[in-house]
């Protein structure tokens, strides 16, 4: 049984308020039957230094990715992972993490590929929970194993592949990387490892809205009005647009996908997880360098 939604007034403004919970709501519902709290971080060890009581860890690199092919785990792999973590198909999953929920949003997007019915983000993530001096523990949770059904991944609705992006050229696209990566001055995030793209720049026509602009100083999502100003005002998107979002490997753009889909209610947003590490290495793929959007060839 899914838990009731958090009826916090800030969340009520968003298109799908049921996709977010506040720290206060989570604190009250930690022990409810039917909930699973999942921590997903950039740092693979951060969970082990202390986590929300009862939370399990899901690591994007070692658990959500296929270890051989550049892809996500398949239906059987996801079912095994969920069963092992003690998560059932009817469990309400609340995901939180470090860095403005960057990796938490990525995990949520992957859960969504498998159509997990009730998956939510903790607004403000790990940092806000900590800031409010809420309990943390290093105690490993004991969740009984479940038998999660094998549900095949659906890559057709919220995921974009390279050929789909080629066909999409000329339609709205959001590049959520830093301005330096967008212009091509940097081939990777400032202060981050080089992840091997041989060309710098962006996909022609893509608007640049760095992903973290969607977060306020305390790590929570900006209000609906502020988000509309950012994506509709500055970037020029409309809710009825068919949008592709991308970054470097598809993690930061999952965060933007979440904002556009669940907070602003755009029905047609896809995340291109191949992102710049695929596009920027693809022979003869069109690229625009500099800060202008450019137009499709």
């Amino acid at each position, binding site marked *: 049984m899914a838990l009731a939604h958090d009826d916090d007034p800030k969340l009520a403004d968003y298109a799908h308020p049921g996709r977010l919970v506040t720290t206060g709501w989570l604190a009250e519902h930690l022990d409810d039957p039917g909930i699973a709290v999942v921590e997903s971080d950039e*740092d693979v*060890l951060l969970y082990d230094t202390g986590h929300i009581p009862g939370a399990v860890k899901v690591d994007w690199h*070692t658990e959500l990715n296929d270890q051989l092919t550049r892809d996500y785990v398949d239906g059987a792999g996801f079912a095994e992972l969920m069963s092992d973590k003690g998560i059932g198909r009817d469990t309400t999953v609340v995901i939180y993490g470090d860095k403005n929920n960057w990796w938490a949003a990525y995990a949520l997007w992957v859960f969504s590929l498998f159509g997990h019915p009730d998956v939510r983000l903790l607004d403000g993530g790990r940092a806000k929970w900590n800031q409010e001096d809420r309990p943390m523990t290093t105690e490993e949770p004991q969740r009984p194993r479940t038998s999660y059904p094998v549900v095949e991944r659906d890559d057709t609705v919220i995921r974009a592949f390279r050929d789909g992006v080629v066909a999409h050229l000329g339609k709205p696209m959001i590049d959520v990387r830093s301005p330096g990566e967008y212009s091509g001055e940097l081939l990777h995030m400032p*202060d981050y490892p080089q992840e091997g793209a041989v060309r710098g720049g962006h996909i022609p026509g893509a608007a640049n809205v760095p992903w973290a602009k969607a977060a306020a100083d305390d790590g929570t999502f900006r209000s609906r009005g502020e988000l509309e100003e950012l994506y509709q005002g500055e970037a020029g998107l409309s809710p009825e647009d068919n949008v592709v979002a991308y970054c470097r490997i598809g993690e930061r753009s999952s965060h933007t996908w979440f904002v556009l889909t669940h907070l602003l209610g755009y029905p047609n947003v896809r995340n291109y997880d191949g992102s710049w590490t695929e596009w920027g290495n693809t022979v003869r793929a069109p690229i625009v360098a500099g800060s202008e959007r450019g137009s499709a060839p």
Partner: protein
Amino acid sequence: MTTAAALPPGLADLVDEFEGVSTKDRLQLLLELSQELPGLPGHLVGHRDSMEQVHECQTPLFLAVEVADDDRVQLYFDAPPEAPTTRGFASILRTGLHDEPVQTVLDVPDDFYVRLGLAEAVSPLRLRGMAAMLARIKRNVREQAR
């Protein structure tokens, strides 16, 4: 292939320790090492500008390399508690190489970290930070030892 004999004793012991345990226990070992990373000595506290940033790490890591009069390498690292993996990598190098002679540090095989067996536990991508730290340490040592 490199052999254990090529590593200084402290580093060789760590490699043996990692090799001897399961993947899950390797993470635990890395976590413990991250907690043991010593703080900065007085002359470096508050002086990040005199340290070198290791950009290849996912989280900001600052490194200072000093070669003492007796030609022994002194290593200091600064990384936030929210970055335990990066701290763990730094701690491996600190435990294994601090106060070792210049030549010993320069002789450490660049790919020694492969033998820690961490690729499976933390992913190969995250391991790049470790390679970068060692490369930067060696470059600093070479420059100062000239």
